[in-house]
C-alpha cells in the first residue's frame, strides 16, 4: 500500500506497529472508533460502477417538507418535475422530527399580519428579512390545508402522507441518492450529479432549473437527529459560485447528560407524536444564553429558561430584548425535550434534568443559513437555481428563534413559492448540454475516495472535526484567538485530509462527501464568526460583547472568489444583494 504520492512504501503490518501496535488498534476498533490512516479495503468493483442520465424541467433536491411542496407545486404549475433525495420522502433530514407547524389564521388571532411581522422583527433585532417573515405567515394556512388533505396530521410518520400527492401526480422520485454537484453552464444552472448508495451508480440530472431543498446541516452532533444533514446544498451551491449566508449564527440547543447521543430519548417521546398546529407566539429563544451560563458558571447548569439570567455571576452575557424576556421554560422552534408533553404537535418543552451542550452543533438558526436569495421568490444568485426551507438563507425568523413552528411552515411555504418561480423560469428556457468532459470530471471527483489505495476514513476525520468545533469555547462563546486556533486545525483538515478521504463502499462514499462538506462549513462558520465583530442574537463574542449597530446592521455573504478562495461581503439588513431596498 502506498501513502500519498509514494513518499514511502509501508506495509499494513508496519503501519499498525507505527500507529501504536495492533493491540491499540484492535482496542480502538472494538470501541467503534475507526483508525485514522488506513488501507482502503475496497468492497465494491470499481469497473462495475454504472452511470445514468436523467432529465427534468425542475429538479427538486431533497425530500423533506420544502422538497414535497417544491415538487408538488412545480408539477401543478405545469413543469416536468423530478424529486431526488438522499434518504426517503418524509423520512430524512429534520422534517420527520418536526411536530409543530405554525398557521397564521386571522380568524383565530387578534394579532394582525403586519403586527406579527413587526413583532418578529423586534425580537430578531433587525436580522430577519420581513418579506420572508410575512410570506411565511401569509401562506402558512394554505399549506397546512394541503397537508391536512394529504393526511399529514393523522400519523407521526410522514412517508405515507408525503407520498400521497406525489403518487397522485406521478412525479418521479429517486431516493437514497446523494447529490454532490450542481452543474452550471453558460452562467446558469444546467443540472446536478450524485450517486446512489444502493446501486453503485453515478447519476447525472439535466435540468432547466434546480430547487435545493437540502435542509441545513451540522457536524453530525449528538442529541439532534441531523446526522444526515451536512450543509450539502450550501457547499455545492458555493462551489458553482452562489452566495451563501448565515454561517455565524448558532442553534444553541443543549442535550441530556445521560445518553447524550440518543435524540429519541433526549426529546422525550416527541418523535412519536402526531404533528399539530401552533398559533401566534413569538419569543427570542435558543441563542447562546444557556451556553454563556455554562461557560461562566460551569456545569451542572441550573435548568432555568435561558435568558432569565438569574444565575450568580452571569451578569452580562447575550442581550435579549426586554419585551421577550420570559419566565417560563423555553420551547424550541421545532425542537427538543422536557416535561409535560401535549398529546400532539406543538413545540417541545425545555430539556429536563442535567444538560450538556452542543446537541445541534454546527447548525444555525432555521432559515438563517443557506443560499442568499435575490428576491422574494427564493431565487439564488445563480440563474435557475432556487432554494427553499433550511437550505435558503431567507432570514425568515432572523438570527434567533422567534415564532414557534414557523420552521416547518416556512419550509412548506418556501417550497411552494420556489416551485412556482422555477416552473415559470423553466417555461422560457431550453435544456443545456452538459459536456462529456464536465461529466467525466465530475464522475472522477465523485468516485475519487473509492479510488484511493489508502487515506483517511471519513469517520475519523469527522470525529476530529467534532473535537475541534463542538467545544463550547469555539462556536458558542466566541473570541478571536480561539476562532483562529480552531481555523488552523480546520485548514489542516481542508488541505491535508479532505484530499485524502477514502471510501470502501457506497455508504462510506456518502460519508466522505459529507465530511468534505462539514469541513468547508466549519471554515465558513469560523471565518464569518471572526468577521462579525459584535454580539447579536445567537452570535456571541466575548471580545465584542455589545451590539454594534453602526457597522453591523448587515448580513455576511460568503462566495467563492475568482481565485477559488473564500470571499466575504456585507449585505445591509434592509436590502437585497443587488442593493435594492427590501420593502414589505
Amino acid at each position, binding site marked *: 500500500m502506498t501513502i500519498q504520492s509514494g513518499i514511502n512504501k509501508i506495509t499494513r503490518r508496519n503501519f499498525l506497529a507505527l500507529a501504536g501496535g495492533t493491540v491499540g488498534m484492535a482496542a480502538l476498533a472494538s*470501541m*467503534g*472508533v*475507526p483508525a485514522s490512516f488506513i488501507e482502503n479495503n475496497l468492497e465494491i468493483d470499481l469497473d462495475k460502477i454504472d452511470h445514468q442520465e436523467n432529465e427534468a424541467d425542475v429538479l427538486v433536491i431533497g425530500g423533506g417538507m420544502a422538497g414535497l411542496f417544491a415538487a408538488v407545486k412545480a408539477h401543478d404549475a405545469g413543469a416536468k418535475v423530478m424529486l431526488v433525495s438522499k*434518504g*426517503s420522502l418524509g*423520512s*430524512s*433530514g429534520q422534517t*420527520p*422530527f418536526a411536530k409543530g407547524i405554525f398557521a397564521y389564521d386571522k380568524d383565530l388571532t387578534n394579532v394582525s399580519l403586519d403586527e406579527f411581522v413587526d413583532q418578529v422583527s423586534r425580537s430578531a433585532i433587525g436580522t430577519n428579512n420581513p418579506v420572508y417573515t410575512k410570506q411565511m405567515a401569509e401562506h402558512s394556512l394554505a399549506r397546512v390545508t394541503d397537508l391536512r388533505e394529504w393526511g399529514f396530521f393523522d400519523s*407521526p*410518520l410522514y*412517508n405515507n402522507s408525503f407520498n400521497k400527492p406525489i403518487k397522485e401526480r406521478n412525479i418521479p422520485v429517486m*431516493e*437514497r441518492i446523494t447529490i454532490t454537484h450542481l452543474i452550471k453552464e453558460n452562467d446558469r444552472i444546467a443540472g446536478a450529479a450524485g450517486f446512489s*448508495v444502493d446501486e453503485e451508480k453515478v447519476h447525472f440530472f439535466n435540468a432547466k432549473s434546480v430547487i435545493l431543498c437540502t435542509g441545513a446541516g451540522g457536524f*453530525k452532533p*449528538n*442529541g439532534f*437527529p*441531523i*446526522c*444526515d444533514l451536512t450543509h450539502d446544498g450550501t457547499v455545492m451551491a458555493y462551489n458553482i459560485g452562489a452566495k451563501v449566508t448565515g454561517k455565524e449564527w448558532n442553534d444553541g440547543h443543549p*442535550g441530556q*447528560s*445521560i*445518553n*447524550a*447521543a*440518543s*435524540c*429519541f*430519548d433526549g426529546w422525550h417521546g416527541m*418523535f*412519536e407524536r402526531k404533528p399539530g398546529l401552533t398559533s401566534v407566539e413569538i419569543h427570542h429563544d435558543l441563542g447562546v444564553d444557556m*451556553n454563556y451560563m*455554562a*461557560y461562566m458558571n460551569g*456545569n451542572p447548569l441550573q435548568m432555568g429558561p435561558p435568558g432569565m439570567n438569574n444565575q450568580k455571576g452571569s451578569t452580562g452575557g447575550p442581550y435579549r430584548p426586554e419585551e421577550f424576556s420570559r419566565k417560563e421554560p423555553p420551547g424550541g422552534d421545532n425542537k427538543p425535550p422536557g416535561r409535560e408533553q401535549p398529546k400532539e404537535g406543538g413545540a417541545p418543552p425545555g430539556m429536563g434534568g442535567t444538560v*450538556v*451542550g*452542543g*446537541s445541534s*452543533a454546527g447548525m444555525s438558526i432555521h432559515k438563517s443559513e443557506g443560499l442568499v436569495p435575490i428576491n422574494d421568490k427564493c431565487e439564488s444568485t445563480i440563474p435557475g437555481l432556487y432554494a427553499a426551507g433550511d437550505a435558503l438563507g431567507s432570514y425568515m425568523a432572523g438570527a434567533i428563534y422567534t415564532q414557534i413552528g414557523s420552521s416547518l411552515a416556512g419550509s412548506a411555504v418556501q417550497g411552494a413559492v420556489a416551485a412556482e418561480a422555477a416552473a415559470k423560469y423553466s417555461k422560457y428556457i431550453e435544456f443545456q448540454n452538459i459536456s462529456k468532459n464536465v461529466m467525466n470530471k465530475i464522475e472522477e471527483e465523485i468516485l475519487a475516495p473509492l479510488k484511493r489505495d489508502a487515506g483517511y476514513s471519513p*469517520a475519523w476525520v469527522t*470525529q476530529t472535526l*467534532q*473535537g475541534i468545533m*463542538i*467545544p*463550547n469555547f469555539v462556536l*458558542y462563546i466566541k473570541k478571536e484567538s480561539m476562532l483562529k486556533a480552531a481555523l488552523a486545525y480546520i485548514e489542516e483538515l481542508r488541505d491535508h485530509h479532505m484530499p485524502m478521504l477514502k471510501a470502501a463502499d457506497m*455508504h462510506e462514499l*456518502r*460519508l466522505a462527501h459529507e465530511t468534505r462538506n462539514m469541513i468547508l462549513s466549519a471554515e465558513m462558520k469560523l471565518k464569518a464568526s471572526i468577521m462579525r465583530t459584535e454580539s447579536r442574537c445567537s452570535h456571541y463574542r466575548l471580545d465584542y460583547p455589545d451590539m454594534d449597530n453602526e457597522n453591523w446592521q448587515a448580513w455576511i455573504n460568503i462566495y467563492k472568489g475568482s481565485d477559488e478562495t473564500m470571499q466575504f461581503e456585507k449585505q445591509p439588513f434592509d436590502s437585497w444583494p443587488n442593493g435594492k431596498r427590501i420593502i414589505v
Partner: protein
Amino acid sequence: MSIQSINGCIGCETCIKMCPTDVIRLDPKTKKAVIKYPADCQICHLCRMYCPVDAITISPEKSIPVIVSWG
C-alpha cells in the same frame, strides 16, 4: 450500541429505506435486514416506528464516544 438487534425480520426493507443515515442494509443471502453501519445510528427510532413487525430493538447508548460542547 444504538440500534441493537433485529428479530423476526420479514425482509420488507422498510427500515432500510426509512433510516436517514443508511445504517441498515439487506443481507443478500438471508434477505433480511442487518445492522451494517451501527456507528452512524443517530438513535432516532424511525426504523423501529416504521417496522411492520416491530422487530427492531434500540438502546440509548452510542457505540462511539460522544462529543458534547460542555458537560
